[in-house]
């Protein structure tokens, strides 16, 4: 459930460049066991609380750079859903020294834009009671100020600087838990990244705010409202969680996005993009000591911000099945979820094993029994840990029935496999297969700078220690058939589940 910025990119050498890159992710190498990777990771905490992870890999003269902040949609205040994601968009708009021809002049116009935007939004909030002519007048006033501001703006400078210097994979994403800014560069250009990112963490300017808010509305139309499967997911999460912040879509509810203000984002930024809430990972062709000096020089002076206490509404226990239907002019779709604890609880590892048993590969139970055997579905998959990992989350199954079979038949077939988990102990070979696969995947991921930077920084920020990842297989190996039986019996129950069904309905 991570929102990404869709960025047009050139297919470097035609089809094959992209293809080879894809092949790389799917296939790759390692003599690196858990401990040798730990030997290669340097972890340093700067005085302001910023954590830095460094790994030297000299395969090619390139480097992957990840910045993660422990903040996401789950931290938004009521009525401000979408703030984390819109802020992520806005942080591409530049700083006081990047993206402006004259910040002093620009600042004056920006202030007036903010007032004009707030006035317009106040009128719009009246809804049906809004004064049409007033709306028009205020919109026109905003528009004029926006053109005035444009004279001072150098648009998309951050992207230009990176692109011109050969960046690939420049992107950002916002999830429920974490916000991420990432890029890969030729390894001689790390200073450019440090210059831009430290500035972005210190002096961002929320220019072109109201236009970007419209862009996010388009993003919502494109990636949620036009796609029935995504709408179903939104409805499913909003139903499964009653109190937890995980009930809200990361992109935000449309009526919340429509009234987000620069002030909302600034508050959010100050609280959560602070160094103590941030992990950086640098992986590639670097001299770790030199790179650390560079990071200290740019990021070290960012003032520490006292940690913000997080008041999190906990999801109360569920005491009965919840069901919800989405009627849409689309083929049927089914989502089922059960509440469960998150990492690093042992049960979360057990659910990782259950996920693999049910849906990893063509020999998985769902594929064998439902896609190939009964041929009820086009696809059925299980995912552990939706929609985030900071708080108690869901074990989720989703599937698409194969015509003429419907979602109810599919649901029954899923429950048959769930019941098997509670009654039949898993065979040794099936567990071995899963461990073989997880081990090989771990090794393959280590072969890419970006993959490694991504995982190290993710687990450092979410689990508080990247070694969650290096010690993962050891933990998985501890999971016994009995653990699986007990965990399934405890959590995968009717009263603990939520079912969302998309049923086809053609509107007249």
């Amino acid at each position, binding site marked *: 459930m991570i929102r990404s910025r869709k960025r*047009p990119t*050139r297919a*470097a050498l*035609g*089809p094959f460049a992209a293809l080879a*890159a894809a*092949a*790389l992710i*799917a*296939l*790759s*190498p*390692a003599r690196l066991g858990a401990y040798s990777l730990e030997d290669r990771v340097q972890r340093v905490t700067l005085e302001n609380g910023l954590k830095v992870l460094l790994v030297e890999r000299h*395969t*090619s*003269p*390139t480097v992957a750079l990840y910045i993660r902040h422990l903040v996401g949609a789950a931290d938004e205040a009521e009525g401000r859903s979408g703030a984390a994601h819109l802020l992520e968009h806005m942080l591409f708009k530049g700083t006081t*020294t990047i993206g402006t*021809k*004259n*910040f002093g002049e620009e600042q004056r116009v920006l202030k007036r834009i903010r007032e004009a935007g707030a006035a317009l939004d106040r009128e719009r909030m009246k809804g049906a009671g809004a004064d049409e002519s007033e709306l028009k007048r205020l919109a026109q006033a905003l528009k004029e100020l926006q053109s005035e501001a444009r004279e001072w703006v*150098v*648009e*998309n400078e951050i*992207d230009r*600087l990176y*692109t*011109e*210097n*050969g960046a690939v994979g420049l992107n950002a994403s916002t999830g429920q838990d974490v916000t991420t800014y990432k890029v890969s560069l*030729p390894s001689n*250009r790390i200073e*450019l990244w440090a210059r831009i990112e430290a500035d972005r963490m210190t002096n961002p300017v929320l220019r072109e705010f109201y*236009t*970007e808010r419209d*862009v996010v*509305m*388009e993003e919502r*139309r*494109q990636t949620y409202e*036009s796609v*029935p499967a995504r709408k179903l997911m939104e409805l499913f999460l909003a139903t499964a969680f009653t109190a937890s912040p995980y009930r809200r879509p990361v992109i935000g509810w449309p009526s919340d996005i429509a009234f987000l203000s620069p002030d909302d984002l600034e508050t959010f930024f100050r609280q959560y993009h602070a160094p103590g809430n941030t992990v950086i990972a640098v992986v590639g062709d670097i001299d770790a000591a030199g790179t650390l000096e560079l990071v200290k020089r740019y990021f070290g002076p960012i003032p520490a911000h006292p940690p913000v206490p997080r008041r999190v509404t906990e999801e109360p226990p569920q005491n009965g099945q919840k069901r919800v239907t989405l009627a849409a002019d*689309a*083929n049927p779709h089914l989502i089922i979820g059960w509440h469960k604890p998150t990492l690093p609880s042992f049960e979360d590892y057990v659910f990782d094993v259950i996920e693999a048993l049910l849906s990893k590969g*063509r020999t998985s139970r769902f594929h064998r029994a439902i896609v190939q055997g009964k*041929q009820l579905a*086009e696809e059925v998959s299980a995912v552990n840990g939706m929609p985030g990992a900071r708080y108690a989350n869901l074990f989720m199954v989703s599937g*698409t029935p*194969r*015509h003429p079979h419907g979602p109810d038949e599919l649901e029954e077939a899923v429950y048959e496999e769930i019941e098997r988990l509670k009654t039949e102990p898993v065979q040794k*070979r099936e567990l071995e*297969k899963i461990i*073989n*696969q997880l081990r*090989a*995947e771990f*090794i393959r991921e280590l*072969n*890419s*700078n970006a993959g490694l930077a991504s995982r190290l920084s993710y687990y450092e920020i979410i689990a508080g220690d990247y070694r969650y990842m290096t010690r993962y297989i050891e933990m998985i190996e501890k999971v016994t058939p009995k653990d699986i039986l007990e965990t399934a019996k405890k959590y995968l129950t009717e009263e603990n589940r939520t079912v969302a069904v998309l049923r086809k309905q053609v509107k007249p």
Partner: protein
Amino acid sequence: MKKALALSLALVLLSAGLCPADDAKGGPAAPPWPDPDRLTYGEIRFSPPKPERVVLENGLTLYTLEDRELPLVQVSFIVGAGSVFEPEGKAGLAELTGDAMRTGGAGKLGGDQVDEQLEYLAAPVSVNLGMEYGTGSLSVLKKDLEKAFGIFADILRRPAFEEAKVEQARNLKIEELRRVFDQPQRLAFREYRRVLYAGNPRGRLPEIATIASIGREDVAAFHRAHFFPRNLRIAITGDLSKEEALALVERHFGDWDDEGDFGTAPHPKPREQAPLYYYPRKGPQSTVIIGTIGPGKESPDFYPFTVLDHILGSGGFRSRIFQEVRSSRGLAYSAGSFYEGRQGYGTFGAYAMTKTESTGQVLSVLQAILKDARESRMPAQDIHLAKRAIVNSYIFSFTSSHMIAFQHMALEFQGLPVKFLTEYPAKIDAVNREDVLKVAEKYLDPDRWTVFVLGDEGRFDEPLKSFGTVKRIP
């Protein structure tokens, strides 16, 4: 060759620090930070290793590159088998053949046994037959190489095409096609392809009826026709020597002397005076695509057109379409262009997804941007930026041994010389404003565009007929 590439890369990366400074800086908030355009960077020296190329007696070509960093072996192949070679009425045959090769059993193993063995070894195999060619892969721990490679070879040479698995592949594809209509963007690009390539085999798309007509015999015949040693190239990299790789391939493919059909298909041509195609579909957003046939990868126009495409819409946030449609007007989340130089032709398109009520406005903006490219020379600074971006990121084409071997294999498959790789940065660097204008004039002719709009016309801001003759599909 190795030296030339090293040199050109070093040169490029060095020159990057010497760009003329942007004059749009300054102001009262004088930075405690250095001007990011004036940062200087050390030199990079990098000689990507060169894979070894061996041709077996039977004509199968092998690329190998030893890389002992990790105990893994990666294998890829390219085969001249794609949907362009499908017989009339059997659209979807190539894709189904690939699916059934992977799932329908191989050699002495049934389909389920293949799955069991590969998944127990954690050695994924893929087979994907696309439009112009097919590719596939195997990734395996060195210790399991012999066993997994044997299965991989059987999948390529001796697929069993179990009837039940062919039927499953067919049924799953039919379900996928039924569900295309639930995804407006996917539907739009699929239908756009049909009209862009009208009259060419590339415009024939799988339909439920064509898939339903494909039987085991069709799949087996397609495999027989296109999988033979002289039509297959394999790249093996990782924890093994060239000799080991060669011996492995000799053992599993050396006695294979089949011949077959290389296949031919005419290159597509741009449409002349095509109508504007409208695909009605209710929903909150429209998809607008304007595209045409561009230069092939072997053409000298490939380089200036690559620069042109970068400036127009594939060069990130600063590219014109993105900037105009998204950043300045807030009319889209996804907007840009794509260009892919293929063998003998290329495909170019500009696109945006916008709310129904701004469809006409977005179509006008896209058309204006494309027209402007052929009416006036691009500013030197835009050309400079695009060239630097392309050349500076080129190093990412060489970030792993397998990627390098794959590049070499793919180039040969496309009939391009190895020097293509070494000359690419210099040829991009040599592109000037006139070159870009010339390719824009040549390829971006409004009379040869294909314009496609999917959406709900009743709610558009402008009727489509104000843009020309409209042809409604379906």
